[in-house]
């Protein structure tokens, strides 16, 4: 090999970059998340899922609310909106309805999604709005200092339940199922490959898809509850997660440091919100109604069909 070729190869090797990086706004890395925080791992899985799904990157929008997970929108290199606290899903609904060609992904924490934003979560699921919602559930409000959330297990210590949490927590897969979500999976941040696969499936799913990822908050939840560091928690995930695809979502509650079910719990088909809008309006208006929010291939197919029809008429 010539010397110049060697040089080129060396260059090629340095160009060989972390496969996640092309999906990140690299000028914003390093991120603000603490050492051992699971959110970064979920972002890695998301990036890999997008790569595998072969979806057009410029037709994906990422929306998040406020909090640690809320910062995801600022780090990923897609069209992204960092909204107000709890309102990621309404913004995603607006983006999706105004431009149904967009695949809108909501990245949200447990407090943001099911505390302040709980109403939007259940209603988007009820409507089977065509959105993908990824919830990084770390059982705490991390950005504000470790307060109790609707998912904090009973008995766990939080800065606003300093003597232990005396509330009953939400089980998010059960909540999503009851509200009408049509794809529901839960993993932990240890299950990177499964998270990737579930997010890929969720991206391709038509309807409201929900992926919950249990994730360590090293600085607040773990420290307050004396659960060691991130590695101890991943070890706990490994020892205590029970894989059960298709599990009854009523069984998915998580006790403090108890066993937890993981897997793909629900996958079913149901008309989405826009499907229902179109069906109703088509019935009302008849042939003149132009279906709202058709994808470009559908529109092209329709044009071709119309052109053929004209030719036939001309003959």
């Amino acid at each position, binding site marked *: 090999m010539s010397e110049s070729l060697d040089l080129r190869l060396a260059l090629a090797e340095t160009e060989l970059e972390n496969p996640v990086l092309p999906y990140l*706004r690299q000028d914003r890395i390093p991120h603000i998340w603490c050492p051992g925080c699971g959110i970064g791992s979920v972002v890695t899985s998301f990036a890999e899922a997008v790569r595998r799904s072969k979806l057009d990157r410029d037709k994906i*929008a990422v929306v998040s609310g406020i909090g640690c997970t809320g910062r995801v929108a600022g780090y990923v290199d897609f069209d992204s909106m960092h909204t107000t606290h709890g309102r990621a899903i309404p913004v995603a609904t*607006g983006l999706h*309805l105004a431009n149904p060609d967009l695949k809108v992904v909501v990245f949200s924490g447990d407090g943001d999604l099911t505390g302040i934003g709980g109403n939007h979560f259940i209603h988007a699921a009820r409507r089977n709005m065509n959105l993908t919602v990824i919830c990084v559930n770390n059982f705490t409000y991390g950005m504000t200092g470790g307060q109790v959330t609707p998912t904090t297990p009973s008995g766990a210590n939080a800065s606003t339940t300093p003597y232990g949490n005396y509330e009953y927590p939400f089980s998010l897969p059960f909540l999503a199922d009851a509200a009408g979500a049509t794809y529901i999976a839960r993993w932990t941040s240890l299950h990177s490959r499964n998270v990737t696969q579930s997010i890929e499936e969720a991206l391709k799913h038509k309807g409201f898809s929900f992926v919950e990822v249990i994730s360590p908050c090293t600085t607040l939840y773990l420290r307050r509850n004396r659960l060691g560091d991130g590695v101890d928690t991943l070890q706990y995930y490994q020892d205590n997660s029970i894989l059960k695809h298709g599990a009854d979502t009523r069984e998915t509650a998580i006790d403090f440091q108890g066993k937890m079910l993981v897997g793909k719990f629900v996958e079913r088909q149901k008309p989405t*919100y*826009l499907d229902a809008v179109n069906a109703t309006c088509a019935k009302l208006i008849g042939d003149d109604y132009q279906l*709202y929010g058709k994808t470009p291939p559908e529109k092209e197919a329709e044009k071709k069909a119309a052109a053929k029809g004209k030719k036939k008429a001309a003959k």
Partner: protein
Amino acid sequence: MTEATLKADPKGVLTGVHFIDGDHAACEGALAAGCRFVAGYPITPSTEIVERFAARIPKVGGVFIQMEDELAASIAIQGGVWAGHKVMNVTSGPGLSLMMEHLGYAAMTETPCVWVDVQRGGPSTGLPTLPAQADMMQVKWGSHGDYEIIALSPNSPQECFDLMIKAFNLSEEYRCPVFLMMDEVVGHMTERVNIPPADQIEITDRKWTKKKPGEYKAYATTSDDLVPEMVKAGDGYRIHVTGLTHDERGYPAMDVPNQAKLIPRLLNKIRNNTEQLLDVRMDGCDDADVIVMSFGITSRVATAAIEAARAKGLKVGNLRLIICWPFPVKLIQQLAEKVKAFVVPELNMGQMVLEVRRAVEGKVKVISIPHPGGTVHEPETILEQIIEAAR
């Protein structure tokens, strides 16, 4: 500023003479202006606007969704804007109180959108089916932090139509929330509304950028033009929109220099254009001793009182604000050099009168005619105060 001026899309324009109420006329104004997406939440007395929109939109080509609450409605529309649509947000007092955080979000992210507030008596649930003009200060100051908005005040169904189009155009020109401050009486008053042909309706297009991805910066402005160019999601620009203090790229930048750059620009893009945003109706103000300043439904009562006063030989000017925010401080100052007093009737316990006092700086008398709402003023009450002021 140079915005592309277009003609209205005929699909949304219901050309002709109609006998409809202010709510319905406002909805027609929005459709004529190009609004094709509304996320609504019902609240008396504004509901007819979204009801008509829901009925009309399948045939016009667009979509309506009734959201789960006002918080969702006021932010879902902003998602719609960033996907490329023109949108409006329709509510009344209690709903508006819930939406305040998202008013700030729209101001901070420079999301063009129209907010319709059909005002009713308050505070709290107050008088759901009766009028007031008591949200005038709330829209200007209700969200936390410093921001500027534009607010228009119609006094008839015809104006609900006309000013709605103007509101949409201003929101695109300045990229800020623009309010249409209706009230229960204007909303439910049925009158003749003339909707012109589409080619006679001028529409301001969004300030779309011509730059390519890579060279475009979401919030870059020049010293001549403080309004940044816009793109929409899905076009390859990979924009980031955040309510955090941000830099020119739109990335969070929470420090003093960026705050010191961003916030004054958000305010100055409106404040520097107060002259262009002056929209008032003046009648007999040149040689007046007393000027009655009013807006919205109160201006109709005021006009009756002014005519009665003139019949008694008094020199009374009629000043009606069409654009209430930004407040025409300079105009009031100029008039204060010439008159003895201002009389300010309004359907609240004294809100816009504070602005008049601030502008006048104690040079002349300013008489407030407050009203707790629920009905309009008696013309006699205003007349008495005019006579008092003219003394």
